[in-house]
Structure formats: C-alpha cells, structure tokens
C-alpha cells in the first residue's frame, strides 16, 4: 500500500484474508509476550466447525449486542432509563457490564500443575477469567484443546462461600455469587446471552514459562454455552481487582500492551509489563475513569479528520457521553453527530466508486468488483493530550467480498450513548 498525506491506496488483492497463516515473530522476540491470533482465521484451528460459517452480518449483529450491553450498563448505573433491550433472562441474571459477543482475538496460556495449554479470548471489556472445566456438569461447547480437568491438577483449590474473595465476584460479574456445599459459585451472562457458571477457584496460571502466578482466581465453568468459537474461555483484562491485570500487578504494575494483526491470517502479540521496552514512538493520552463503568478503559476523543481535513464537530459531541477503548468490540461506535460528519466527508471523497447495499450496522458501502486498487481517504483520531492516531488502512473498511465493502465505523443511536 502506498500512502500519501490524505489518502491510502489499497490493493484489493490484499483485502481478502489468506487461507494460510503467516505468523509474525514479534511475540517470540519479546519478554512476557503471548501470540495473538484471530479466532476465525487460519492461525487458530478451533474445535468448533460451525464457526467458519459465521457470516459477517452475524458478526456485526453480535458486535451490536455487545455494544448494546455496554450502553445499557452505563444507562443503568447512571440512573437513566436506557432504551436498550436487555438480553433475555435465562438461568442467570443478565450482566450488562461484561460482554463477550464478537470478541475476536485469542491468546494461549497455561493453567494448572502440570500445565495445560488453553486458548482464551482476550477482552479488555470484561474482568473475570474463566475456562470450561470437566466434568462439565451441565454443558460445555467444543473447544480446540482438551477441556481443563481440575481433578488432574495438584495446584487447584475452590474458594469457600465465606471468603471475602467470593463476594468480590459481584463487581466483576455483575451477579451475586452462589454457594453450593460451602463452595463459591460464579455465574456470568454476556450481552449475546452466552453464559458461563461454575466454581470460583484458585489455580496456577502460566502466561509464559517465566511468568507463573500461583493462586490465580478464575472461574472453572461447569455450564458454558454460547458463541466462543472453539476458545476455551476468556481472559479478562479489565480494571476490576479480579482481572488478570490486577492480579499480576505486583510483577507487571498493571501495564500491558498488544498489537492486533492486520488480517485474520497473521498474528500479533499481547505483552505484559514493558516487554523489554515500550516503543519510543508511543504517544500517551490520559486514561479517564467513567464513573458508571469503572472496569472500562476510558478515553477522551477530541477530533476526527478525513482526508487530512478536520471534521467540524463540536467538542461537546465527544464529551457528552465520553468514550472507551475495547479489544472486544469490532466496529468503532461514534456519537451520532460525529458519525454523520465522518460519513458525509468519506462519501464525498469516495463519490467516484459505485455504492453497494448496507451491511448490517454499516451503512456506507461500495462495490469494488471492477477495481484492482482503490484510493481511500485517510482517517485520523485525536485524543486528549494532543495524541494523533492514524487508522491503519486495514481499519478503514470492512466487507464480505469485493462487491460489498463498507466504511468500518458506525454511529450510536443516541448522543448520550
């Protein structure tokens, strides 16, 4: 891809992912670093055959369920009656603060003694780490590796109901813990109605061979149902005391970084601590705490530019509801006025291309069937503190095929979302 100051030329042959995995050596070269793969790409051979048939439209619907859940948490906690439909109640109360849905990226960690490798979805938008556990008393879905069996580990122990650790589940899961034979029971339900429930326990977790943490608190799931696509569970990277970020703070000082790969056929990394050195080109913006959602990582967006032109968006548009960064949400959601300005500018600069029907939540789509290269306006975000982030060309468009490629942004339905 050639890049000018205001536009990006994309060779469409590179738009569709390769069926062959091309791993990066980046993770292997860094301390305390795990390889990140996309759960629907060739770098993750999962145990769920159905996952490969999930359509982009379904992925976007799952993504919207996740976003609805995040919004309903903020509406609920701020005392504002949200107009978001709550997920149907099944066996657990809906936890609208923890949402997995479309979370896409997977890392492999070791659990137990002896260590068993497990592929977990990593998610900065939730807190509790859990995995499926034998004997799967009620339900387990198919996963890539053998399901973890605590009976085969010498370092596993359950948490008792009377422990203060048990009551810490409430903030991490949104649900009060249960108690069975004096053993603490967790339950969590996600925005797409996926669930996990089971024993709240301690176990040794091995991030790498030199990063081993005994007594790590996690959920050992005996009832697991949902859209996890072969992953063994979830790695919660939120800000709650129960997240892996907080539980490993003594070593990593609540510092971690990641790079999500440019396609589902390449790999990235998740690195705890400074990994031997944070890039000198990193620009930092202050982390804001949103009172209604203290587990989330808050950001302050200050502006957006398209094709080198700053969009005419009043600052209040961004400050009304604030913003978060989330590794589990696929498509960036913007306040309605900000999205409207972005869409207008993008459409103007893309007017020479034939349009295509909308794709689920994406309403600005094009038919590039007759093109080998296209020129797309560069999109940049400004954050508080003068941080300017140019969105990579892989983050501008999202599509099913060359006949339906869409602007990869969407608007919230309300300015207060």
């Amino acid at each position: 891809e050639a890049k000018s100051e205001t536009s990006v030329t994309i060779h469409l042959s590179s738009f569709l992912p390769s069926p062959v995995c091309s791993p990066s050596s980046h993770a292997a070269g860094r301390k305390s670093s795990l390889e990140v793969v996309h759960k629907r790409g060739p770098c993750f051979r999962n145990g769920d055959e159905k996952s490969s048939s999930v359509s982009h439209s379904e992925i976007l619907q799952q993504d919207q369920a996740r976003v609805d859940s995040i919004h309903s948490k903020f509406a609920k906690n701020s005392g504002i009656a949200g107009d978001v439909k709550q997920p149907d109640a099944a066996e657990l109360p809906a936890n609208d603060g923890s949402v997995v849905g479309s979370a896409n990226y997977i890392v492999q960690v070791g659990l137990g003694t002896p260590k068993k490798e497990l592929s977990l979805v990593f998610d900065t938008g939730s807190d509790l780490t859990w995995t499926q556990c034998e004997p799967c008393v009620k339900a387990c879905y198919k996963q890539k590796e053998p399901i973890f069996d605590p009976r085969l580990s010498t370092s596993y122990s359950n948490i008792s109901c009377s422990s203060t650790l048990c009551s810490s589940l409430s903030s991490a899961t949104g649900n009060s813990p249960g108690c069975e034979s004096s053993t603490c029971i967790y339950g969590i339900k996600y925005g797409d109605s996926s669930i996990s429930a089971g024993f709240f326990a301690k176990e040794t977790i091995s991030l790498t061979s030199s990063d081993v943490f005994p007594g790590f608190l996690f959920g050992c799931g005996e009832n697991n149902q949902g859209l996890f696509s072969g992953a063994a569970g979830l790695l919660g990277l939120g800000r709650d005391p129960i997240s892996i970020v907080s539980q490993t703070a003594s070593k990593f000082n609540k510092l971690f970084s990641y790079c999500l790969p440019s396609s589902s056929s390449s790999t990235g990394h998740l690195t705890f601590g400074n990994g031997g050195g944070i890039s000198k080109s990193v620009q930092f913006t202050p982390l804001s705490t949103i009172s209604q959602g203290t587990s989330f990582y808050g950001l302050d967006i200050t502006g957006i530019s398209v094709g080198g032109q700053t969009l005419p968006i009043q600052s209040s548009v961004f400050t009304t509801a604030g913003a978060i960064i989330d590794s589990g949400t696929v498509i960036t959601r913007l306040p309605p006025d900000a999205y409207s300005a972005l869409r207008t500018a993008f459409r103007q600069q893309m007017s020479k291309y034939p349009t295509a029907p909308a794709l689920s939540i994406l309403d600005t789509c094009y038919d590039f069937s007759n093109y080998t290269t296209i020129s797309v306006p560069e999109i940049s975000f400004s954050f508080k503190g003068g941080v300017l982030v140019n969105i990579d060309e892989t983050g501008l468009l999202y599509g099913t095929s060359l006949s339906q490629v869409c602007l990869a942004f969407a608007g919230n339905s309300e300015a207060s979302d």
Partner: protein
Amino acid sequence: VAIFGNVQQQTLEVVYDANGGRVGFAPNGCS
C-alpha cells in the same frame, strides 16, 4: 459512550498503563 473498536486498533501498538493513568498508541506495533 463512544467505543474505539478492534478493527480500528489493527496494527497499532496499544499500551495500557493503568497505574500510570494513561493509554498509548504507536504505529506498526506488529512488525
């Protein structure tokens, strides 16, 4: 809230420094 999603985070180095109260971005984080 607005949400900065994972499609737009691709290839960036995203640094979470919770104790330092900051989030950082750098280009070409995977290469």
